[in-house]
């Protein structure tokens, strides 16, 4: 289908734009990393002209080249997967990050999935008993949940559940003494370590349930619901196939926006739980001014989001038959 190709083109365009923005940030902005090498690192070196080579080595940008050439070089090497050399780890950025990506994806996909599943269920419950005490109570709960930043929830849980009551580990991806591998003890430890980060993202379920509630109530007023009721369809069919499906569809947009913001939130979360994912490396790089690693992590996170959104968008057609025939807004 035509729009799928265009959607793909849009993803490619975004990646290109991100790499270009990165180049601009690394090379052109005031206080950019290249200048950093030349003005800060350079004078400390025995041979200040080495600074140029360092910049080339770490950042893939040769400051002596004219801009267009430098840009093309940068673009080519980035697209070939060469994100430069990390300064603190002295390894290629790609290698540093490769070990981190699966962990971030693991935690984030669970966080997104669970918070939406819970949010949608709660929203449906609220709509079903609209106006009742259950509804009022859950609405208040969802409103409060939405008001709390996820990192506040994370800190509170960390203080009480980990430090005070030792229910969960205080941080890390798995118990350090374990040998990684597909064995039960290790997997259990991984899950155990992931619970708090996943739960922290639960604040997103508040907003999701509120919008699910609104959508469901709107669907309840639709003509086709009236027909379905008069036709005598069973309550389950009506609840799931009529209200549920139609109320969830408009939330797709919200889901896609939260993919982006949750991945962004990973930076904070991984820092709080000392969880070595992409965000943790990004922050580490920032604190130690490891520019290549910082830019690399930024690009990787962005590309992960672009791909996630692409997949989400392309699968949308499976649940909504109207996709592709009307001008539905997509991200």
């Amino acid at each position: 289908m035509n729009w799928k190709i265009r959607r793909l083109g849009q993803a490619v365009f975004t990646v290109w734009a991100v790499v270009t923005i990165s180049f601009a940030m690394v090379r052109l902005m005031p206080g950019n990393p290249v200048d950093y090498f030349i003005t800060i690192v350079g004078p400390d070196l025995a041979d200040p002209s080495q600074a140029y080579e360092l910049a080339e080595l770490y950042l893939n940008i040769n400051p002596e080249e004219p801009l267009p050439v430098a840009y093309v070089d940068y673009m080519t090497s980035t697209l070939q997967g060469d994100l430069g050399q990390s300064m603190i780890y002295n390894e290629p950025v790609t290698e540093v990050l490769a070990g981190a990506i699966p962990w971030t994806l693991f935690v984030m996909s669970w966080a997104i999935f669970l918070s939406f599943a819970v949010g949608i269920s709660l929203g449906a419950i609220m709509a079903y008993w609209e106006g009742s005490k259950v509804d009022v109570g859950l609405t208040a709960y969802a409103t409060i949940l939405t008001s709390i930043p996820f990192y506040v929830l994370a800190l509170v849980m960390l203080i009480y559940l980990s430090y005070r009551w030792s229910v969960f580990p205080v941080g890390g991806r798995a118990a350090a003494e374990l040998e990684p591998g597909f064995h039960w003890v290790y997997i259990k430890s991984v899950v155990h370590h992931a619970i708090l980060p996943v739960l922290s993202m639960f604040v997103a379920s508040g907003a999701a349930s509120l919008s699910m509630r609104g959508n469901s109530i709107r669907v309840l007023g639709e003509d086709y619901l009236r027909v379905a009721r008069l036709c005598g369809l069973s309550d389950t069919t009506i609840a799931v196939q009529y209200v549920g499906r139609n109320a969830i569809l408009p939330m797709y947009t919200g889901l896609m926006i939260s993919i982006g913001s949750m991945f962004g939130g990973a930076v904070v979360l991984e820092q709080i739980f000392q969880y070595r994912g992409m965000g943790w490396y990004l922050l580490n790089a920032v604190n130690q001014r490891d520019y290549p690693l910082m830019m690399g992590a930024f690009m990787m996170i962005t590309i992960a989001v672009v791909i996630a959104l692409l997949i989400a968008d392309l699968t949308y057609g499976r649940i909504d038959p109207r996709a592709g025939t009307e001008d539905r807004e997509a991200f």
Partner: protein
Amino acid sequence: MTMTTTDLTDRSEDVIMEVSNARVSFGMERGRARVLNDVSMDVRRGEILGVMGESGSGKSMFADALLDAVVDPGVLQGELTYYPGDGEPIDLLSLSEEERRRYRWEDVAMVFQGAMSSFNPVRKIRTHFVDTLNAHDYDVDRGLERAKDLLGDLYLDADRVLDSYPHELSGGMKQRILIALSLVLDPEMLVMDEPTAALDLLMQRSIIALIEEIQSKHDLTIVFITHDIPLVAGLADRLAVLYAFEFIELGPADDVLAEPAHPYTRALLRTTPNLETPLEEMRPIEGSSPDPVNIPSGCSYHPRCPMADDQCREVDPEPYRVDDDHIAHCHHWDEAIEEESPVAVGGDDRTPTRAYVGPDGEDAEDPLVSLDDVEVHFEQKSGGLLSRAEPETVAAVDGVDIDIHENDTVVLVGESGCGKTTLGKVAVGAQRPTGGSVSYRGQDVWDAKDMLGGVSIPFEEIRRALQIIHQDPGSSLNSHRRVRAILETPLRRWFPELDGNDRIQRILGMLEYVGISPPEDYIERYPHQLSGGEKQRITLIRSMLMDPELILADEAVSALDVSLRVEMMDLMIELQEQFDTSFLFISHNLSNARYLAEKTGGRIAVMYLGEIVEIGTVDRIINDPQHPYTQALKWATPDLDPDDEIETADSPIRTIDIPDPSNPPSGCRYHTRCAKAREVCRVETPELIEADEGPGHQRAACFRAYDDHAYWNSEPIVEGPSEE
């Protein structure tokens, strides 16, 4: 009420549904609203009962009550008894939840008017049928067979339709599917609430014809609820008229139409535009329907009734027997029946029938607006890189020439999707044509806009001279602005010399002029505080304040109640005379077109799939249409004659559905539906030529207008009415 309607009707008849003293009420901020006020009615087995009422008369409530399906806050009281063909009578209001679930759809089913949104958008049509069959423990395979038969009877390609999603089908198809869905459990009675209101004339008429067939084939009792009397005139056996949430007249359709006994019914019939009634006899009904919270005491019609006396104001009229089977709730029904024109209050001076002003040819004065070979091809819109729509070209208007003169009136008629609105917008410069040219007094409109060539009339002036009145009065006024702000906008733009108080005075004057009173109250209102008719008047004033030369009125009355339509049309005609404007009306309704064109001495132009197929003066188009499509439209326009039985057999169209406009048929575009089509029509395209018989002006695009043409020797295309 001592005597109920039921007491008066003949009990020997086989009754399928007995309604007595049914009342629906609910609480509102302003008080308790009664939207069905103690109505009683017997529905007889095997009949088609037409229930006629304007919007706000409680007719939908009556429909809902028959299924005990009144929506929440409404409460239904009274007694409703259903007599099944076999078995015990059922008291509707004492059914258990489960019994009621079974009663609905198995015994009595319903068809709504909102077919566009009556299907779950994410499920295929088939699942709608399967779900319904399952919910009632019917055999799914046999049920689907039945569904296919029903769909076939309704001229649908059953297999294709069942495998479609709702959004892939047109409104007319969905409406027919809804009828099939309502019949899939083989109910005894079918309640149809405005089942054709949203459809085109031809589709409406075709569906009505199908309903008759289906009724006899399945032994159905049908309650057909509508606001459109002519529609049911030929269909219904008995006719009931609702006014102010009560039945005010009931009787055999022929009697009610020929000798209406209630002043309201008489007024309603008079106000309904049709093709035959002489214009002098058409009159608007004054006043408006009552508010459900404040139903007038005594006869609820007395504030509007010209014959009202003290008795009427105090005593609620009981049903009076006019005839064996004909009753009316009016104290003075006998006088009403005798009075030749009981509702005429105004004088004849309000209905000047003008003569056609000028020929549509080279010898005429310079036209005001002239369209030359206009073409509009739409590309589906796209936004950013992400829009999902596939680009597709639709030729909305294809090679149209037309001239509009000063003080001229042209009415464009056609089915939806035929391009009449697009053409209208091109004519007033609201839409840029993709081909051909539009000129205003000889100046090309879009050249003026782009400052191309020597511009003799600046675009600003053209802009001001060409105005528009939209179809939906609701959306043509900005809901966030008060009437004052809405009407000030054109004055601010075009009369900067006026200050705020001048503007207000002018607006008040105009409001008063069109009968909105007291105007000081109205200018502070938001649009949603106005009635449909008031909104439409505001839009009319808004365009009039610009002092335009030509106004496009796009279905300007179709959103209004029947009783308001004639009044609104009269107002427009009056303003046209007062201010020397030309009008380009758009209508899907031949009766309205006739009314407007005849009163102003204008022309009617019939459009089909982007082309004008016939154009001419009223009497020629209405009385002697040359083009088969115009003839079909005329066939589809119902009139008040109850003997006018409709049958699909003499339907002048071969298929009900309009071809896909993005892929119009070759040759004569009408050949896929034309009953007179011959092989040559598939390949050759007819030009719009002078139809040479008789006086008046008339041109048609059909080979039959040529005396000697290959057409006459060509083989007829023979296919039965079918789905393409």
